């Protein structure tokens, strides 16, 4: 039956995964149905894990269902900026020791799992909204809260509703200075903050083959900002090469049927996109970088799970090389994983950053979450590559946050205000 489901021309990605995983693939689960599926992997981080541990203990469960499949990642505030956070980190380490589950400190969870653990066709539940990033390699990956994470730890299963799907057809070629981040910012600007709520996004079309795994990860990650449950790039030769190069085995490929039913369909011609900026705050419209005046930037933050990958830092290095960050603007660069951090040090990117006057930090979520390494003060203005520009996200409620690609952020750091990065590339 499973094979018949996988070959069914009329099913979406989400329908196929849920049908194959649920009840041993005995029947098809269509959009809108509820099913229970086993987790292949479960992840919680240092701001959701402590609550999950508390709930797990309150439930009275003694042992987790499978320690090898459970990852705890200390990433949001690493290393601990104060005693309160440090004590929650201790709670995590004690739980890890007691249960024998996996622990990583000092890489962002999504990037760590992408580099080392998550494979196509896998079901990943993560107690972090941006877990949907792993859709970039064709995994069924979605965010949940702490109590449901405790339930997954206890039983290895969770209920899901088969989501409606949205198809986005990408055509054309990105212009110089325009990147994956600009595609997803443009899309969110088009559909709104709840335009993908409860839904599964399927990224398709001839332009997908030109997007690297890092670019796809940026798009799948940031898709959360329109509320999605999944954001999927199916396995293709780019994915296969990625796994082969990393000497990792892929799991299995799931492809939506050509006659699958989509609730909505969008076409985006990448050739028409300009560098996009969203802000100040999430109530503002998405605009082109060239539409901004010379309002002073106090801070530029380049990093986070959305845009702290090696590919991002390479572009930033290219722009910053031989230039100086504008006086009066601080530029903070934070890699997404230890692996990215080490590569940036060994290949000279770190030197370029430091010579430009930027601050280059350890791998962590950093300034994105307003708790360390670049907190914004009253009325400060920041351009950031992190996923969110919510009021108070990076510090003071009066601070203004704009979002852009790493290229736009780096060029803007040199000028001290928002600019189109084109002339630096």
């Amino acid at each position, binding site marked *: 039956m499973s094979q018949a489901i996988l070959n069914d021309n009329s099913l979406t990605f989400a329908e196929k995964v849920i049908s194959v995983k*649920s*009840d041993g693939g005995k029947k098809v689960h269509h959009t*809108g*149905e*509820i*099913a*229970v599926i086993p987790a292949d992997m479960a992840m919680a981080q*240092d*701001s*959701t894990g*402590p*609550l999950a541990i*508390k*709930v797990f203990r*309150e*439930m*009275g*469960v003694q042992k987790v269902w499978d320690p090898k499949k459970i990852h705890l990642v200390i990433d*949001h*505030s690493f290393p601990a900026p*104060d005693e*309160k*956070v440090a004590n*929650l980190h201790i*709670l995590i380490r004690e739980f890890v020791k007691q249960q024998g589950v996996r622990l990583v400190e000092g890489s962002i969870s999504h990037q760590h799992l992408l580099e080392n653990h998550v494979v196509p066709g896998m079901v990943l539940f993560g*107690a*972090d*909204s941006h877990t949907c990033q792993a859709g970039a390699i064709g995994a069924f990956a979605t*965010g*949940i*809260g*702490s*109590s*449901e994470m*405790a*339930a997954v730890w*206890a*039983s290895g*299963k*969770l*209920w899901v*509703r088969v989501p409606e799907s949205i198809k986005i057809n990408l055509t054309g070629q990105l212009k110089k200075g325009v990147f994956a981040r600009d595609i997803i910012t443009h899309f969110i600007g088009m559909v709104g*903050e*709840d335009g993908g*709520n*409860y839904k599964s996004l399927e990224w398709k079309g001839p332009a997908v083959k030109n997007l690297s795994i890092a670019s796809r990860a940026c798009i799948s990650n940031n898709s959360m900002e329109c*509320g999605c*449950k999944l954001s999927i790039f199916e396995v293709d030769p780019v994915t296969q090469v990625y796994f082969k190069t990393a000497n990792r085995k892929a799991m299995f490929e799931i492809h939506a049927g050509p006659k699958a039913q989509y609730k909505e369909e969008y076409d985006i011609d990448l050739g028409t996109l300009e560098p996009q900026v969203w802000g100040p705050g*999430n*109530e503002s419209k998405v605009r082109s970088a060239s539409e901004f005046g010379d309002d002073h930037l106090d801070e530029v933050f380049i990093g986070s799970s959305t845009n702290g990958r090696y590919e991002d830092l390479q572009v930033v290095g290219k722009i910053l090389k031989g230039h100086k960050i504008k006086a009066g603007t601080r530029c903070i660069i934070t890699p997404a994983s230890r692996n990215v951090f080490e590569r940036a040090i060994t290949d000279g990117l770190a030197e370029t950053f430091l010579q430009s006057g930027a601050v280059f930090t350890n791998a962590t979520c950093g300034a994105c*979450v*307003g*708790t360390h390494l670049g907190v914004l003060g009253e009325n400060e203005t920041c351009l950031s590559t992190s996923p*969110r520009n*919510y*009021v*108070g*996200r990076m*510090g003071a*409620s009066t601070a203004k946050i704009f979002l852009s690609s790493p290229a736009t952020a780096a060029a803007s750091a040199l000028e001290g205000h928002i600019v189109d990065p084109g002339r630096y590339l």
Partner: protein
Amino acid sequence: MSLPTPSTIIRGRTWVWPDDVNTDIIIPFRFKARTNDPVEMAKYAMYGFDPEFYKKVKPGDLFVAGRNFGGGSSREQAPVAIKYSGVAAVVAESFARIFYRNSFAIGLPALEVPGITKQVKQFDEISINLQDWSVTTKDGKVYHALKVPEFLRGLMREGGLVEYYKKHKSFPWEGLQATAS
């Protein structure tokens, strides 16, 4: 501190909120990442709109909100802060996906009623019925919330996953047959 499980009929006065109230407004990261205590979390409920909200809210108050309530982060501390601030239920035009799941998981009644913000004003007295999943406004009109699978309504009535598991030694979806939602 543990709160009573929700009763079947909840009456209270309303706080009315706009569209797109995100989790960082409900409880900013810098506060939620520094405690595991729900009573402490409650001190920062709705901090992004009013840092003194926790002093103004009364036990049994209700929330009525616009579209996409609880968007953004997966933080369960958001519904927890609301619940422990004394708020007995949230009615919204729509909820963000993870916030909605979390509300059931922790036993904070969350009812999706399109158009509700046009029917309710700040500090109106309304009532919520957790049996037939409806809202009755000040003028006696009844609005039915969008349908929710019975296993989730049962989970809500029993007060969330911890209480449910302690009682049944299983989760409400175990053994569930596939059903249309």
